[in-house]
């Protein structure tokens, strides 16, 4: 059996198989046909809409095929009719009975499984009607007392019982012989139930609802028990148990999700198998007698026979390893282990293994969970938090933000990051513009100088490379755990800090200008290449102390001797090699452009950001990108996926540190739609009433349950606090921010007189 399909002229609403599963009837608004199912195709046997007298009773919501007599079909029409069709006749006579008893649309028809001629219908008007095909009118009418009945199904276990599910979320069990009252009724879902299905063997009833769940009820006892709940991603329109597989059930959604999912009810969060052939939502599922083949119809106008071997298995794609890192650097790692290696117990904390012999779909499996504790204390974490809180990402001018952020980074000892900010400021800030102007004046000089410097650079090539390598490894140390190096950097920094000169306090003559430019270009180059390390050449840097920006950068670069030769284990080979590789290209490109108009720093900046991100410091990369604002468009080669990744990483880390405000800010400032849309999902958190713990949804100061505002009164003025409410975490009393401030400037105890010594800071 293979997957075959046939296209119809309109959307199909329902399908039904005959009793030996060789033919299928399909119905919709513009479709009503019978096909025989051949080996590799569907063959049309009969088109019931061929009649000239088409009307609304031909447009069906549901089709049912008599389970005793192959010649009878029944349909539920959208106009409230229930029609019985005799396939042995032709033309108008085929429509053997038309029951016009329902006042509203009929949603379902269902034949009795053993009694011939008997069928039942459920309608939007809230009634169910029991028909005998030999009679002109309904034999019995059942009033559900609900707005509408969405599905009716005869029980395969109890011949007189049928289940009806309705709009208000209730399930009713009826005996066909008792029309006055249902045998049993219970509320199954919080929204309308769209479908139900009896398990072919067990006494289970599956119900599917708009609340995005499928529930399996055990009806053996008088009180129904909920055995399983499956959570789906969309409202479910149809469910059908898989024959010969006790725990499997097929479902299709009403909107959004076009695939047909087969669930193992014991694994309620991921489908056991999925069929994605349909392009629009599937409207019906019918199993062809055995567990491997089923047919489905869809609103994309197709009828498809699916073979189980073509299914995709979402569960197999699921990640079988899991990893999480706490803010303290502790790591949890869970993974599947081969069952046979059950003997040794690794450093894991827990071990859970489950065995199952129920069906061939399951096998023994085991998993381990490791916990790794971070041994060394590393102030990286606190600095992360500090930086996140203190960075200014918007609202000021670009240079101001860079200056501020550089100072912040400096304050917590992240001198290298501080340098990045300064370089970014230099490259894209006001000076950038100034330099452009300078270029116009001294373009020729600059060119010569650049040439000169590049020659020199060539001579120093080896040295430079070595230095670069050392620096980047030093970088790693700062980021990592090696405290010695870090202090070294910090010391060096402080020493050089003394040379600081106020900004703008420089002036130079004609000759100096050249030097200035030379130095600048070197600065740039080094900034680009090594991100934050300046070439350590005293002769270049000394004459230019007065130059504010440059001097800042120079500070950052202590002579190479200061660094012990680095042998940090997490030295990053990649970053090293990339730094080295970069150099020749750069040289070539500079010497190639004769006028050297404005040198575009973006490539190097990207390199720098990538370097940081690779080391796990997405904070720097993301913050720089955010502050860059409009300048971002110059970074053309930085692809959006990478940036999205960084942003996500940063946001996740912020979440872990519970820095919600910063997180919200970053999302807000993110320029990538998929990120900024995160804030469009629910971000609301309600406070609870302090008396009854009901969430205060309407306003923060009035409880709907207590009808009082007691909880939000200021303990000083006894008025309701509608704005910021400050309270003591010790005694939970509080009030207006200003009032409390005033109070605690004079007093120590709680203003309510509770005697608590509140701590107000």
């Amino acid at each position, binding site marked *: 059996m293979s997957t075959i399909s046939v296209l119809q002229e309109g*959307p199909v609403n329902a399908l039904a198989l005959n009793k030996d599963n060789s033919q299928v009837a399909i119905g919709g*608004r513009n479709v009503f046909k019978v096909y025989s199912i051949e080996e590799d195709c569907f063959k049309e046997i009969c088109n019931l809409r061929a009649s000239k*007298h088409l*009307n*609304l*009773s031909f*447009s069906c*919501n549901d089709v049912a095929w008599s389970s005793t007599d192959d010649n009878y079909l029944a349909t539920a*029409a*959208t*106009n*409230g*009719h229930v029609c019985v069709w005799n396939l042995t006749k032709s033309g108008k006579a085929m429509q053997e009975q038309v029951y*016009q008893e*329902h*006042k*509203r*649309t009929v949603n379902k028809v269902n034949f009795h499984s053993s009694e011939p001629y008997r069928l039942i219908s459920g309608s*939007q008007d809230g009634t169910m009607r029991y028909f005998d095909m030999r009679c002109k009118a309904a034999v019995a009418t059942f009033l559900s007392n609900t707005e509408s009945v969405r599905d009716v199904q005869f029980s395969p276990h109890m011949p007189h019982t049928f289940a009806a599910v309705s*709009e208000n979320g209730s399930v009713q069990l009826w005996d066909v012989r008792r029309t006055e009252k249902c045998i049993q009724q219970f509320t199954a879902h919080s929204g*309308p139930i*769209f479908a139900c299905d009896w398990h072919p063997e067990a006494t289970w009833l599956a119900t599917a609802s*708009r609340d995005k769940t499928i529930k399996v009820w055990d009806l053996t006892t008088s009180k129904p028990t909920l055995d399983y709940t499956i959570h789906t991603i*969309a*409202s479910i*329109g149809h469910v059908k148990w898989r024959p010969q597989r006790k725990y499997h059930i097929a479902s299709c959604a*009403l*909107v*959004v999700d*076009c695939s047909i999912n087969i669930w193992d009810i014991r694994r309620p969060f991921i489908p056991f198998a999925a069929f994605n052939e349909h*392009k*629009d*939502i599937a409207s019906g599922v019918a199993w062809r007698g055995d567990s491997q083949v089923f047919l489905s119809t869809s609103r994309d106008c197709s009828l498809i026979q699916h073979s189980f071997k073509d299914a995709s298995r979402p569960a197999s794609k699921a990640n079988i390893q899991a990893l999480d890192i706490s803010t303290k650097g502790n790591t949890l790692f869970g993974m599947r282990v081969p069952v046979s290696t059950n003997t040794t117990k690794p450093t894991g904390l827990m071990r859970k293994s489950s065995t199952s012999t129920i069906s061939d779909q399951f096998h023994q499996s085991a998993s381990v969970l490791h916990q790794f504790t971070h041994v060394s204390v590393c102030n990286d974490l606190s600095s992360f938090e500090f930086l996140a809180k203190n960075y200014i990402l918007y609202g000021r001018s670009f240079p101001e933000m860079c200056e501020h952020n550089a100072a912040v980074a400096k304050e917590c000892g992240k001198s290298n990051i501080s340098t990045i900010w300064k370089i970014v400021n230099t490259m894209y800030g006001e000076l950038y513009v100034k330099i452009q102007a300078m270029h116009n004046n001294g373009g020729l000089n600059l060119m010569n100088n650049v040439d000169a410097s590049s020659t020199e650079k060539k001579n120093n090539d080896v040295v430079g490379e070595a230095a670069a390598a050392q620096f980047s490894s030093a970088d790693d140390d700062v980021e990592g755990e090696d405290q010695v190096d870090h202090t070294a950097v910090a010391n060096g920094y402080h020493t050089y800090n003394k040379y600081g000169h106020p900004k703008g306090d420089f002036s130079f003559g004609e000759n100096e200008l050249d030097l200035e430019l030379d130095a600048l270009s070197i600065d740039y180059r080094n900034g680009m290449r090594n991100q934050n390390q300046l070439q350590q050449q005293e002769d270049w840097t000394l004459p230019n102390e007065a130059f504010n920006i440059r001097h800042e950068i120079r500070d950052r670069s202590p002579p190479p001797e200061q660094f012990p030769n680095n042998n940090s284990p997490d030295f990053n080979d990649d970053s090293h090699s990339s730094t080295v590789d970069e150099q020749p290209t750069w040289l070539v490109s500079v010497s190639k452009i004769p006028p050297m108009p404005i040198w575009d720093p973006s490539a190097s900046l990207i390199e720098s950001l990538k370097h940081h991100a690779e080391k796990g410091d997405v904070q720097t990369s993301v913050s720089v990108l955010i502050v860059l604002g409009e300048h971002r468009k110059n970074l053309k080669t930085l692809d959006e996926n990478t940036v999205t990744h960084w942003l996500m990483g940063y946001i996740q880390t912020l979440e872990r540190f519970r820095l919600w405000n910063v997180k919200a800010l970053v999302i807000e400032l993110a320029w990538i*739609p998929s990120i900024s*849309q995160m*804030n*469009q*999902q*629910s*971000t*609301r958190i309600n406070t609870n009433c302090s008396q009854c713990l009901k969430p205060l949804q*309407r*306003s923060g100061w*009035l409880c709907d349950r207590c009808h009082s505002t007691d909880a939000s009164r200021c303990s000083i003025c006894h008025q309701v606090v509608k704005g910021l409410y400050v309270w003591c975490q010790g005694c939970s009393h509080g009030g207006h921010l200003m009032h409390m401030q005033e109070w605690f400037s004079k007093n120590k105890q709680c203003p309510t007189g509770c005697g608590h010594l509140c701590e107000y800071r």
Partner: protein
Amino acid sequence: MGQIPQNTRTLFVEAFLQNNRLDHVSQVMGYHPSYLDNFLKTQNFILRGDGPLPYDYRHYIAIMAAGRHQCSYLIQLQKQEFLVQGGDQSWLKGLHCIPQKLRNLYDINKILAHRPWLLNKSHIEKLTKGKDSWSLAEVVHAIVILTHFHSLCSFVFPCGVNQELDQAGGYRYPETLQMLNNPGGNSVAAATGVSKKSSDPKDIPIPNDTRPTAGKILNGGRLNNFINKIGVADWTSGRTQNQSPPSPTEPEVGISTLMQRMKTLSEQTQECTPVELAKRFENVETQSAELGAVGPEPQGTPADIGIFIEDTQFIYQDFAKRDEHQSIPTFRVQDYSWDDHAYSLVNRLYNDVGNLLDDKFKTAYNLTYYTMGGRTDVDTSRFRRAIWNYIQCLLGIRHDDYDYGEINQLLEKSLKTFIKSACCYPECVTKKDYLKVLREFKHSEKVHVNLMVLEARMQAELLYALRTVNRYMTN
């Protein structure tokens, strides 16, 4: 002279808390507290609750929506709200001053307001692609706000809701009434004739009392005493119920006849052929196309609201007369219904709003006190269903399981004209029209009819809009 029922009063307090005023719309809706509850919750949620759009956008979208029907009342209210939310003052200079992103929404606004059947995938695509693009969640949020305010216009005009006190053209208290503002207001109010209009206390629109909370809010409670005066403009003058004879030109079918017809309809078994039924739907559609608006179109647009309107020529066109007869078939509610499809979609893209809307639609549709005029224990379901389906029929939505012949039997021509005008040209409806129809009905029942216009229209617009979004998503 009745007290305001406790539940209505609680709702008024709630309305005040939300809006910092007890606006006239809420006051009129106070006839139906169960509905008012849902209405306030929904309106508060879509304007101030959790949602993808920024607050100033939401109010501006509301202004744009109300502009389609030149509803200065709603525009004024929303302008204030817009400023309160920190909206950019310059946007209020007109549509040319707003960001391109908002401007892009105008097409959908226009189409949804007047000819929702013209909406197609390309409109959604235009919004969600390219520069200044909208996310789908934002689109759905905007659609909900647009439809809410379009249909609210269909309530404001036909109820004759006046400007708020602080708005230009709002009610001014004559000196003589000032003195009535005292705690013993009950008797005095009765003496003015404002409240003694009816022998039946049930139909006093909103009885006066000295509510401390709402009263305090509203200028010392005097507003409440004269709610009739200002909330629904001067109902007293038009108080003709059970007294005035139907005007000779338009003989009105009395309630007794109506009830007789409903009885006959429920007794008769459906015997007409489905073909006949289809014909009846078309008949109702074409007949409705022949009904004009109740009043003349308002002359010109005031400048202060004209700046929020573009393309004033684009107005309702009868569905039966649509040019695109072939390409746009009748919308079958059985193929895309609120319960099955629209609800799930709207809830998915805009958290929780589906439940609120669902409750609101259900309340409006099922609301009944089993009364009709002065009569009690009447099953009004047929009458209500006829009104609901007639409104949706005007917008090209057909319920397969409804015999549209019933509409012609239950809704007389004058009522149909009123409903059609309220739904399609609300700006033409005045309080006079409100008073002319359904003379034997009570105010609360007439307000209920207007509520149904509001809700049926909103549901219809939402169905079209969400079906389009659905199509956009699946392909």
